[in-house]
């Protein structure tokens, strides 16, 4: 359990640091795989079949469909390696660590509630916050989608950590939303690239004030 958690944190920190788009998509896929594995493991531990389904969905959608779709978009657009971070790696990492502290600080109070694994919840919140931060620090539209995926992963982890997942029906709904969201965003990136001849969102600054 803890191993998974640390592995997840490692992947997210790696994502903060790397610049290659394919690599980032890959890391997101790995993250989803890890999550799926964790879900399956917890399901096996508790004999919860619903978690198998959740794990399968996670892997299928977040580790396979969406990464493939994003790679397709990258290929269509033809951008692989661009410098999209607005901050230096050092600063980025420092802030990411700071957000980890915030997450631990915030979840510390909730630990007393029986059954909540404070450590895992903290990791989940870390994932969510760093995912959001990833979006703050990156300019390229695609990495922003990846940041969103990291956040979703954090949410899934939170659900796992606290209550062994949400009701399956809700989970299905969420996965559907994630899938559609990724598709919509991917298509938008495509259109943005077509219109602006770039997927650098810092160029999207016509609307101000």
């Amino acid at each position: 359990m803890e191993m998974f958690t640390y592995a997840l944190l490692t992947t997210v920190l790696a994502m903060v640091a790397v610049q290659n788009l394919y690599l980032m998509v890959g890391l997101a896929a790995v993250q989803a795989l890890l999550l799926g594995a964790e879900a399956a493991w917890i399901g096996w531990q508790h004999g919860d079949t619903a978690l198998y389904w959740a794990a399968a969905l996670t892997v299928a959608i977040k580790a396979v469909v969406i990464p493939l779709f994003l790679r397709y978009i990258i290929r269509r657009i033809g951008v692989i390696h661009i410098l999209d971070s607005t901050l230096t790696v050092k600063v980025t990492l420092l802030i990411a660590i700071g957000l980890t502290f915030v997450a631990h600080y915030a979840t510390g109070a909730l630990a007393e509630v029986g059954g909540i694994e404070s450590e895992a919840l903290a990791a989940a919140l870390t994932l969510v916050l760093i995912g959001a931060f990833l979006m703050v620090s990156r300019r390229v539209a695609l990495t922003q989608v990846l940041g969103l995926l990291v956040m979703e992963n954090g949410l899934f982890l939170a659900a796992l950590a606290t209550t062994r997942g949400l009701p399956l029906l809700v989970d299905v709904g969420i996965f559907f939303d994630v899938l559609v969201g990724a598709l919509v965003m991917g298509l938008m990136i495509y259109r943005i690239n077509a219109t602006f001849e770039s997927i650098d969102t810092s160029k999207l600054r016509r609307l101000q004030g």
Partner: protein
Amino acid sequence: MSTEAPVLEVPIPAVPPGQAVTWAGGVWSGLVLVLSLLAARAVFTAGPVRSLFGIVYVDSLGALMLVLIALVGLMATLYAGSYLRHEQKRGQVTALQHLHFFGWFHLFQITMIAAVVVENIGFIWVAVEATTLVSAVLVGFYNRRESLEAAWKYVILCSVGIAFAMLGVILLYTSGVHAGLDHREALNWTSLMAIAPNLNPAVVRMAFALALVGFGTKAGLAPMHTWLPDAHSQAPSPVSALLSGVLLNIALYAALRVELITRQASGAGFTGNLLLTFGLVSLGIAALFILVQRDLKRLLAYSSVEHMGLVCVAIGLGGPVGLSAAVLHMVCHSLVKPVLFFAAGNLGHRYHSYHMERIRGACRAMPLTGGLLIAGALAITGMPPTSLFLSEFGIVAAGFAAGRAWASVVVLLALAVAFAGLLLHVKEMALGEAPHGIQIGEGLDWRALPLLVPLALAVLLGIWMPPAVADALRQVAAMLGGGL
């Protein structure tokens, strides 16, 4: 401009575009309205309705939202008919796009309806996220640079926000499970309300805080509101009307569901203060932004931020006065804001711009639209005889009643600034002489209905509230006060 992405093409049978779609949409929306009214009557006379294996659940708050969605939806559909026909005639929109528009437009309404007729908070979340995705397509409808930019910001910011909300939902679920609820019903609102006193207050508080940030992003609360002026201004005007008029309410509705549980679990202090803070910040920021706007639709969008802030302030202050004012205010805002967006759409068509500097002498060029622009502006700033006067007065009164006169003072100040700001722009747009080359004259036909009906309703509520409406609002306010 760009290649049409294949996924965006919703299969709609190839009917002749134009009139037929408009009529079909109108009939459909009318039907929805009738059904909503029937459902609302059932709810308000006999209590919450549950059906379809317990998935569909409508209580008084939901019923009110339902009626608002249906009413504004019908008006927007009617307006969209004439709006798009005009654009099609001018060649801005192809027949195919016209069809697409209506497909997405009604899908958008369906997702909104879905959000208010389910009980499971998880489902509410799913529906709210779905509204974002669907409406993002509509925001980007024109395929211009600006609209793409707006749609992108909209979808990203709201998705991030709503991810925080999801975390809140998960925490709520956790606390429900730990308080002994079954997995299947631990996200059911009624079940959670029933055992709310047993929920862990710390967890629920955190859940509410996250839910408020998340749904608050969608509801346009500052400082998470930044996407709103972009999206609301770039969307086609009928869509803007729906976005401003009802979607914001729905986001707030979702946050309120969590708030009610939290209030039961940990007392009104925390939730009230948080709502009050966000509300006042939104109010203040929006009021100042209104003053320095240059674009008509952005102006209206900021006004929406202001009004959402007001509703939050009212709920945050609480008390019977505050809550009934909040409910009334949501209703009134839903009635009046669409009218303003419709008027803005008409003006945009006539002046070929939403730049307020270019829109001059609207009363001369378009007497009806110009007049309604003034009337709407006066209404939205809380001037009698419209009901917004009453609701805004109630909100200010709530502060005094709650012993927080300072909050009311801030509200009064912000309202005065917003009033000055809105009228500063509107008087120049509506009055004076129309610029050279602008076509003069405007006919009065059924196309005026979507502008006239809601405003007339707002005036009616302002001078005489039908007993049925009064009773319904009272029930909703009572529910917001903590009753089921």
